[in-house]
């Protein structure tokens, strides 16, 4: 991925607003999904779509998060509230650590793909990754 973005205050604030929209959408869809896997699948698809709509946000979310402490903190706060939402809204949720590790694996797998390609994976390819990891889960 060639894009680079500095995590200046404006870019970071825009990224945090993107995360807020993702969280708001997640609040709306997670409780109504038939299973916890489906609820995370919907939340992650919405997140990926949101990130892909803004190259800066995409870069911060998948690349700069491993390099810049302010971006890492913003994503960590978002991850924590998403995990908390899953735990609160889904009685069938896996253990908190399993959910955290699954989210971490999914993020890392997409990050490898984003970092190694000229263009980020399209939504279908990303959703395939979400599905493989989420629906193979047999905790």
């Amino acid at each position: 991925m060639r894009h680079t973005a500095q995590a200046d205050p404006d870019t970071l604030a825009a990224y945090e607003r993107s995360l807020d929209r993702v969280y708001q959408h997640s609040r709306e869809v997670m409780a109504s999904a038939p299973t916890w896997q489906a609820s995370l699948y919907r939340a992650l698809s919405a997140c990926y779509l949101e990130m892909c709509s803004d190259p800066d946000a995409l870069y911060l979310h998948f690349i700069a998060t491993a390099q810049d402490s302010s971006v890492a903190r913003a994503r960590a706060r978002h991850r924590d509230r998403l995990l908390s939402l899953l735990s609160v809204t889904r009685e069938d949720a896996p253990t908190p650590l399993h959910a955290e590790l699954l989210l971490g694996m999914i993020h890392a797998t997409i990050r490898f793909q984003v970092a190694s390609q000229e263009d980020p994976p399209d939504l279908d390819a990303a959703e395939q990754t979400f599905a493989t990891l989420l629906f193979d889960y047999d905790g």
Partner: protein
Amino acid sequence: MSERGRARPAARGDGLEPRSDPQLPSGRHGLPREEVLSNQRERILRALAATIARYGYDGSSVERIVKRAGVSRRTFYEQFADREQAYLEAYDEAAGCLLERLRAAWEEPGGGAGQLRQCLRSMLETVAAEPRLARTFMIDVLAVGPPALERRERHMRSFAALLERGARAHDGSPAPPLAADGLAAAIYEAVLTRVSRGQTEELPGLLEDLHSFCLMIFHYSAVAEPS
């Protein structure tokens, strides 16, 4: 917000304070030059880790490091080109030491699942025992820049290779594509989260849940291979 020059709160029992043994006696001691250089190097690296743990990377000047190490600036620059090089060498030593412990865990009896468990236990307990060292090498690495991040990626790959070895040991088949790399990254992030929050003492308590997750990812049969 910059933490330059501001001391961080002390942590308990991190074993980072300089030991009483490394410093050589002053005056003529008749030791070979190699031994003197090795001793100085060890003291500098130990002092660097302790200084960064206290002041952060940005606040850890060479002046502070040499003062803590009890060596002169000239001695520092005889051993290292600059602070970054010293950090990178300290980072490599710490990561290499941890990876050695994890490899040793794989040599213990217990079958693939049992060895994986030993490996994870060793990792969690080592980081829990060194909370300030963990901050120095997991959090301050971001302040050092690209050379340190490249090293982090390399050591992460080594950790992933260890996990992959566990998957192969189970049934001889390779792990699913990217599974070991993704798992290594997820475990690193889970540990980093506790280190960032100052909750490293919780790490050993994650073992059973972490182990069962890894078994699931690599499609182990926990029943067939009791830990």
